């Protein structure tokens, strides 16, 4: 199943997906993903969380083929909002808004949308190709992993997301721990003991990470909107001019696509650094290398082309550790992991061997999703724009209704709706005091897994703690963990010693990838 077999596997994957039924699922996924991604305030992880209940009852391959479409669709959808409304749809499109909105004001909004769409297609296709070549190599490597290596890897994912989230180290640290704390609720898998249920039977099953994501991101967002709506003025422009790029715009776009794609993919592979960081890094690169760098900030096309390619490429990159190792590096892939778990599947080396049809079907559907995005999106862009006309109060209460619907559909009980409300209040408070939310979701997903690997490691080594440091791979990973952990600590000490030297930058939006 390695090496040259990739191509036969891929052909096999396409033969799984290229049926009318599955193509329909890809198309539905792309359309719904884009539609919801266009809506302001809803990013990819929330889109997938909200759509999970819709896939209940589908067979696994159909569901994952649809997720492939949703995944890239949601990534792409945010760019439309950023370009035409000065509020980005999600954090990974914050950077796009800078130059995209200026372009739209100058009447080049169509070109901005086009460079985003074509750049996303290019980046998504490259990332899928790279995913396909890299994942099997990683799988071969990961087959030697035991419990200590998995423990160290998950710890690395957690410390990376903690180290990279937000400006305040203690806040990010707390957010991760809060997620882990949520993950501990319910029955302990090894001993069957109830934990943190306080006699409440509804809590025995634990706090579903999807519910955590919906509560923090969606319900919390609606409360936040209730508090801020009447005080924020939104600027938007109507789309004028053609959707085609002129010669100069093409020539300036393609180098930015390539830079953005490479930056995005490798950022995505790293745990903890998601689409948002990829788009910021890409913008930095454009500031240094773009031909039109002097124009950046006033509507340079590179400022749209690069970051939009980067955030789509990072989405593909993030699937590498998820599929090959079973370890999510972002809130979006964490929710994807939960989707796998719902179907009784555990991503990782064994999945490649035991469920080859599913894995390669998913990879094939990612190629198709990218193509579908390109075909559907440019012609349909005027329909997506209509979505921006939905009055925000109506839109936000709709999100609220859909959140509670999803939870009720899943659990069939109103007690879980109370829990969702409580999580919404927590999400609102975290947002109010500027805590990052993505580490909470990642912690809630990884908490139970990391604990199992920890206890398994110590059971194997008969309670010898050196097991994490005596195996070579594990030792390297633990060293990286220590570095990821110590850098922000030193940073904090350094900052504290130069008190009030700098005021943090403004609200960068919610890091929700």
């Amino acid at each position, binding site marked *: 199943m390695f090496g040259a077999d990739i191509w036969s596997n891929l052909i096999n994957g396409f033969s799984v997906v290229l049926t009318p039924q599955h193509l329909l699922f890809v198309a539905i996924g792309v359309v719904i993903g884009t539609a919801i991604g266009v809506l302001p305030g809803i990013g990819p992880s929330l889109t997938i969380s909200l759509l999970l*209940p819709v896939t*209940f009852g589908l067979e696994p391959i159909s569901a994952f083929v649809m997720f492939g479409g949703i995944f890239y669709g949601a990534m792409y959808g945010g760019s439309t909002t950023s370009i035409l409304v000065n509020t980005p749809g999600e954090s990974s499109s914050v950077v796009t808004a800078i130059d995209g909105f200026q372009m739209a004001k100058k009447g080049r909004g169509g070109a901005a949308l086009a460079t985003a769409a074509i750049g996303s297609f290019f980046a998504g296709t490259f990332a899928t190709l790279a995913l396909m070549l890299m994942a099997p190599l990683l799988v071969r490597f990961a087959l030697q992993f035991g419990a200590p290596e998995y423990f160290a890897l998950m710890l690395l994912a957690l410390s990376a997301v903690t180290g990279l989230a937000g400006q*305040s*180290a*203690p806040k990010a*640290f*707390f957010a991760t*721990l*809060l997620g882990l*704390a949520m993950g*501990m609720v319910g029955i*302990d898998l*090894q*001993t069957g*003991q109830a*934990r*943190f249920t*306080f006699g409440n039977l509804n809590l025995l099953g634990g706090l579903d990470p999807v519910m955590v994501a919906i509560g923090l991101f969606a319900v919390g967002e609606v*409360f936040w909107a*209730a*508090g*801020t*709506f*009447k*005080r924020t003025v939104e600027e938007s422009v109507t789309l004028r001019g053609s959707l085609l790029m002129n010669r100069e715009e093409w020539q300036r776009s393609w180098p930015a696509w390539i830079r953005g794609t490479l930056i995005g993919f490798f950022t995505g592979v790293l745990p903890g650094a998601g689409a948002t960081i990829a788009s910021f890094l890409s913008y930095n690169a454009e500031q240094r290398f773009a031909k039109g760098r002097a124009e950046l900030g006033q509507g340079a096309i590179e400022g749209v082309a690069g970051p939009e390619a980067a955030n789509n490429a990072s989405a593909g990159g993030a699937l590498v550790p998820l599929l090959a190792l079973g370890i999510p590096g972002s809130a979006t892939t964490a929710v994807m992991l939960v989707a796998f778990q719902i179907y009784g599947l555990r991503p990782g080396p064994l999945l490649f061997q035991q469920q080859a049809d599913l894995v390669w079907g998913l990879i094939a559907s990612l190629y198709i999703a990218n193509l579908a995005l390109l075909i559907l999106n440019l012609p349909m862009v005027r329909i997506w724009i209509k979505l921006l006309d939905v*009055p925000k*109060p*109506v839109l*936000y*209460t*709709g999100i*609220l*209704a*859909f959140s*509670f*619907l999803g939870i*009720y*559909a899943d659990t069939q009980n*109103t007690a879980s*709706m109370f829990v969702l*409300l409580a999580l*919404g*209040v927590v999400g*609102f408070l975290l947002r*109010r*005091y*500027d805590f990052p939310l993505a580490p909470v979701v990642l912690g809630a997903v990884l908490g139970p897994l990391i604990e199992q690997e*920890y*206890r398994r490691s110590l*059971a194997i080594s*008969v309670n010898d703690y050196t097991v994490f440091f005596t195996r070579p791979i594990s030792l390297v990973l633990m060293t990286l963990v220590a570095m990821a952990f110590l850098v922000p600590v030193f940073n*904090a000490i350094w*900052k*504290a010693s130069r*008190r009030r030297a*700098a*005021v*943090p930058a*403004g*609200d960068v939006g919610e890091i929700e990838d």
Partner: protein
Amino acid sequence: MQTIRWVALTIIAFGAFYVWGASLIRESTTYAAVGPRFIPNAIGIGIVLSGLWLFAAPGAPPAPDTPQRMSLDWVSIGLMAGLVLLYILVFRWLGYIGSTILLLWAGAQILGDRSHLLRDGVIAVMLAATIYLVFSRLLGINLPQGLIGF
């Protein structure tokens, strides 16, 4: 005292509560090297430490346009939370369609759509009915029928 220090104290209290919650877990030390209480305990202690850290290093006072400084409309937030609570309480009794119409319509008013009472009402009825039909008929997911009986 800075607000963020109160937040830090809340975190410390939550951490302490969590450690107490962990102490309620029954340890069965018969076969496992590490029992079910160990990691939760460590997490609780970590939360207390993160609270202490935040208290000690609250950072520079927030810039005027950050979320912490934005003046919030607390009345709307309270009304919204109250509405959701009401929604959950009447969910089974009123049925999916009835309760969701209430949520959609009243929610839009709280979020500041006061001049569109009728339009929002129509949207609420249509959306609630569509969701109900799609989920209960098409996807076969059980939603409460309630008073109205459908």
